[in-house]
């Protein structure tokens, strides 16, 4: 070196030049890394700042009944929200701080932290007073009780703090795991860094929170005016420079949607002239029903959960066409849940969520060119139900206790001893299903007691804690009942199909099934009156006659002959064991055999011949089974969505003449004077025909099924009491215009109400009147 550059000074200059080049190298390298390496991504990031996007609101789809009546619809409304720092009053501290800094600009840098705090403290009260006033104004504008507003603020703070704690814990956990995965040791210093990293504020600590949800238009205008107002505040006294602040800091009016259920409360005329004579009257009266079809329609809630988000993602990944439709060009799901969005929580509102949920529009403004690109919002699609809301309301009205049919009446128990847990006047819970046979469309599905939407909104615990009545439960599909005698007609074709019963074969009623035991497996008529059923020729009973008089001996014998396998097959043919898939909540699929085992011993088999023992199903199963019989052994899954494709019919291949026998038995049961569903015997009045609607052909069967007692600890002594016991009262019915075949299948169950004919019979009769009133039957 010394030889090449003899001058030291020149060598030193070269050294300096080399240092400069050496320093420039990392600059150039980093420049290359940013522009060449990450250029594409960073360009996109920079360009994204040129755009400002705003979501435009959308509308949730409606739910309609089969006639097009609106059952659920969106109504525009507004949420009043306040920024979190204002809710916590932190706003006052911040604002006082910035005012103090401004006022003492020169002195500020030299002040100690203590002196600064002292200065801030002198201005703080003015801001705090201002906030207090703002809350008062807000309460006034929204017509809310200030105390209520205060409680809501506390709730918001509590929930945000909870969320913050859990998020901080989750972040710290993730951070710690990542560091361990990277192989770094967790020292106290790193632990400190982790907690510092995880304690950064969460979005909820900046965002506005809804304090007054769903205010109508006029209120929202008042609140907006309040939000736009500015006032001059004199934190340092009247002679000092003012600070211009919002009249109500952090106040925001947000677009929100309210869900209306226009047919939820209806006034329904009831004509009691065709009621059983003890409660009959000529005066038509009106009944107000609430929660019409609420079990089916379901409801929404205003705060979505992580599960909702996951569910939507799963649905979108399952359905690529839907996925393509809901995304913006940038790939954002236009229907994704945002704070305050309503989300289906139950019923069709829940299962129909992907269809009903609307897609927000997107208005993107290019800030530099002012160009606006609008992606129109898309309203959610309507869902049309097979339910006839008017019929549903009528059936519900009939089953409202005040009307009389659904509260314990003296004539219900007749001469038999009254049910000690159900004194006269006790409301009877129950369920009723009306099915259109040809299409398997469910016209009405009523579960009583009804669900009170107001209560659901204001105090849902009252609903969920009512263990006796369980108003939230849809009894039509989710409560197991033993079927009782209503299954007798189903056993005839299946026994014939499986070769256990010959055509025209007669079985004698012996009163008690086991020749040497008079106390078990008795026929009901032997048990009550000590007599035997008579067949047509005086001897054995043939199938139709056995159904007509509901002879137990005949069906004990069928049960025994069918055996475990045959019985299981029979019940499965008629719909047990498969969910309906209606999408309106949990469904009981039916069960056979001791719970969980499916095993049937000999005694079970005999009892299952009359629909007792270890077998249970729901009212919808009963209606479906009868409808299958009426379709000559073709099964069709009941459905609730009018526009959904029908399920494929299943041909059961039952002998036609056996089905005719069964239907004949069902016809006679209601139309012949020996039939168990023909009449009820009233004290002092005598026999009274149950079905009194003219011009109809009817088929049907009563059922009185033993039920396990309902126990609950009502008095809170730690021990359960029997709060309900007795038999469930069943009635299944097929009906059509006179001379024609059956068109509608009806199933009614009344819990712990006793005799099928006496309690459920009159309800079924009134359902026929309702079908006539709504024009379904002549």
């Amino acid at each position: 070196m010394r030889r090449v550059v003899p001058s030291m000074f020149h060598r030193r200059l070269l050294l300096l030049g080399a240092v400069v080049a050496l320093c420039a190298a990392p600059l150039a390298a980093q420049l290359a890394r940013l522009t060449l390496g990450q250029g594409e991504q960073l360009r996109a990031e920079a360009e994204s700042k040129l755009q400002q996007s705003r979501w435009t609101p959308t509308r949730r789809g409606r739910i309609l009944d089969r006639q097009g009546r609106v059952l659920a619809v969106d109504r525009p409304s507004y949420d009043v929200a306040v920024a979190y720092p204002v809710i916590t009053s932190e706003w006052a501290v911040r604002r006082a701080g910035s005012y103090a800094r401004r006022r003492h600009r020169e002195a500020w840098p030299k002040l100690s932290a203590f002196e600064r705090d002292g200065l801030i403290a002198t201005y703080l009260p003015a801001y705090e007073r201002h906030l207090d006033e703002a809350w008062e104004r807000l309460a006034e504008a929204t017509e809310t009780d200030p105390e209520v507003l205060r409680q809501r603020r506390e709730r918001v703070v509590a929930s945000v703090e909870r969320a913050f704690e859990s998020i901080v814990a989750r972040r710290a956990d993730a951070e710690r795991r990542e560091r361990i995965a990277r192989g770094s040791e967790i020292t106290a210093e790193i632990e400190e860094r982790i907690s510092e990293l995880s304690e950064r504020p969460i979005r909820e600590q900046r965002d506005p929170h809804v304090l007054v949800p769903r205010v109508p238009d006029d209120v929202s205008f008042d609140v907006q005016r309040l939000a736009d107002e500015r006032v001059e505040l004199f934190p340092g006294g009247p002679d000092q420079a003012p600070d211009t602040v919002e009249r109500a800091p952090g106040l925001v009016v947000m677009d929100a949607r309210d869900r209306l259920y226009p047919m939820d409360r209806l006034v329904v005329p009831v004509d009691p002239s065709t009621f059983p004579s003890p409660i009959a009257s000529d005066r038509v009266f009106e009944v107000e029903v609430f929660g019409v079809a609420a079990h089916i329609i379901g409801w929404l809630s205003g705060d979505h959960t992580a599960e909702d988000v996951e569910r939507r993602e799963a649905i979108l990944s399952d359905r690529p066409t839907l996925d393509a439709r809901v995304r913006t060009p940038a790939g954002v799901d236009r229907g994704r849940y945002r704070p305050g969005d309503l989300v289906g929580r139950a019923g069709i509102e829940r299962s129909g969520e992907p269809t009903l949920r609307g897609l927000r529009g997107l208005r993107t403004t290019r800030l530099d060119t002012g160009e606006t690109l609008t992606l129109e919002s898309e309203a959610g699609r309507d869902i049309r139900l097979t339910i006839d809301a008017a019929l549903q309301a009528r059936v519900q009205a009939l089953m409202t206790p005040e009307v009389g049919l659904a509260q314990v009446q003296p004539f219900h128990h007749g001469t038999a001893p009254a049910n000690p847990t159900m004194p006269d006047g006790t409301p009877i819970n129950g369920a009723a299903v009306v099915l259109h046979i040809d299409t398997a469309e469910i016209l009405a599905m009523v579960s009583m007691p009804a669900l009170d939407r107001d209560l659901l909104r204001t105090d849902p615990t009252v609903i969920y804690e009512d263990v006796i009545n369980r108003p939230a439960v849809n009894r039509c599909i989710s409560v197991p009942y033993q079927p009782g005698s209503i299954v007798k007609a189903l056993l005839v074709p299946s026994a014939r199909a499986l070769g256990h019963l010959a055509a025209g074969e007669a079985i004698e009623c012996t009163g008690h099934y086991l020749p040497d035991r008079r106390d078990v497996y008795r026929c009901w008529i032997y048990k009550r009156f000590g007599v035997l059923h008579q067949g047509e020729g005086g001897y054995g009973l043939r199938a139709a006659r056995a159904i007509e008089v509901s002879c137990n001996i005949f069906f004990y014998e069928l049960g025994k002959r069918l055996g475990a396998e045959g019985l299981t097959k029979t019940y499965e043919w008629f719909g047990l064991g498969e969910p309906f898939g209606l999408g309106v909540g949990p469904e009981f699929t039916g069960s056979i055999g001791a719970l969980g085992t499916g095993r049937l011993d000999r005694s079970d088999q005999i009892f299952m011949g009359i629909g007792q023992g270890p077998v249970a199903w729901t009212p919808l199963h009963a209606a479906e089974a009868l409808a299958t019989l009426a379709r000559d052994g073709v099964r069709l899954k009941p459905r609730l969505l009018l526009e959904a494709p029908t399920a494929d019919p299943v041909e059961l291949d039952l002998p036609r003449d056996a089905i005719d026998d069964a239907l004949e038995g069902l016809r006679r049961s209601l139309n012949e004077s020996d039939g168990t569903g023909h009449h009820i015997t009233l004290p002092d009045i005598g026999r009274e025909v149950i079905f009194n609607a003219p011009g109809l052909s009817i088929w049907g069967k009563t059922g009185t099924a033993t039920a396990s007692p309902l126990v609950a600890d009502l008095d809170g002594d730690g021990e359960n009491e029997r709060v309900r016991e007795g038999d469930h009262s069943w009635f299944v019915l097929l009906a059509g215009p006179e001379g024609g075949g059956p068109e509608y299948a009806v199933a009614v169950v009344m819990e712990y109400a006793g005799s099928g004919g006496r309690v459920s019979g009159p309800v079924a009769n009134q359902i026929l009147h309702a079908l006539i009133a709504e024009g379904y039957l002549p």
Partner: protein
Amino acid sequence: MKPSASVSDAAPASAPTYRGSIAASAKPIDPPKPTNVATLSVIAALGLCLIGVYAIDLGESAAPSSLSRTATRQCVYIAVGLIAAIAVVIPSPRLLRRLAWPGFLGCIGLLVFLLVPFVPESIVTPRNGARGWINFGVADFQPAEVTKIAFVLVIAGYLRFRTEHRTFRGLLPLGLVTFVPVALITLQPDLGTSSLFIPALFAMLVAAGARLRHLALIVAMAALAAPAVYPVLKPHQKQRFVALFRQIQGDRTTAYDINFQSFTAQTLVGAGRIEGVPDVKARALVRYSRLPEAHNDMVFAVIVTRFGFAGGLVVLALFGLWVVGALVTAAQSREPQHRLICVGCAGFIVAQMFINVGMTVGLLPIIGITLPFVSFGGSSMLTCWLMTGLVMHAAVRRPRGPMRPSFEFDE
């Protein structure tokens, strides 16, 4: 600004004493008249100024229709700077030497004045919390900037014929002279400007033949002592270091708070890619990214947005050209004062460019410092042109007759 033969250099006032022997080949000979390489520095400076005016306009107005107010003012500053540069070429080196100490002391006086409490804010208006400007009515004046010039002249004058700086103890007076302005400027606080004095001093010491092992020892000691300084830093300064570390670690969580400026700058730099974006688009990108100090400290990000990697390299190359001009002028010069002035000015310019670009591309913490010739600012522009003028001052003066070699020691 033609090199004029009539301007003569005075002979050294006192006879120097050499401790080392004179290098054999460094015989005083009358060199052939070399080309004036300082012209390169002038060309580079003019280029940078042009780019700067455009970038300032780009960062400020949405449309390229007419020059923005800031850009127009920058043009005026450039003109003032040019005049000052010409003015500084004219006086004799002796006059410069004579003015060095009084000028330096005057600057120190101004720096002290800035820190005097109770000076009305109409005179000393704090900007971003720093008391660095004196209001002269027409324009604000930043004494720290001109202090650089005075500093270069003082150090150059001091080291001119000395050999003490070859000893470790001999570095002490230089340290003291440097400490005064650095401390005063740090107190404003203007860490950016104050941090430039050490590299400039080091460059001059290296050129003046100080022992490299002394300088390395000082650097090592400073590196060891650096952590001790950290607790004394102001919260916002600490935050910037923390921000830089997190950024290097790849932590993007700070992109919207403490690291906003740095991330925005890097995003814009990256957005330029290779070839940059068209004028209107670049204006929009800079405007809506809300880059703080787009016309000032962050002007380099604006340039790269507009002209991409290529433009960034051109800017770096222009600085390289300026430095080459200054260093080659130093190499050609025989007058020790000229040599050190060129090296000192180059030290200031390079250090300032390095820190500014480094913070813009995310290699250094954000610190308030301008990009020489490019960023908006009168005092800064004036200083940069004064430095260019000083280089030219050295270039136009050729030694007449035999001249003793300076700064030639045995290593």
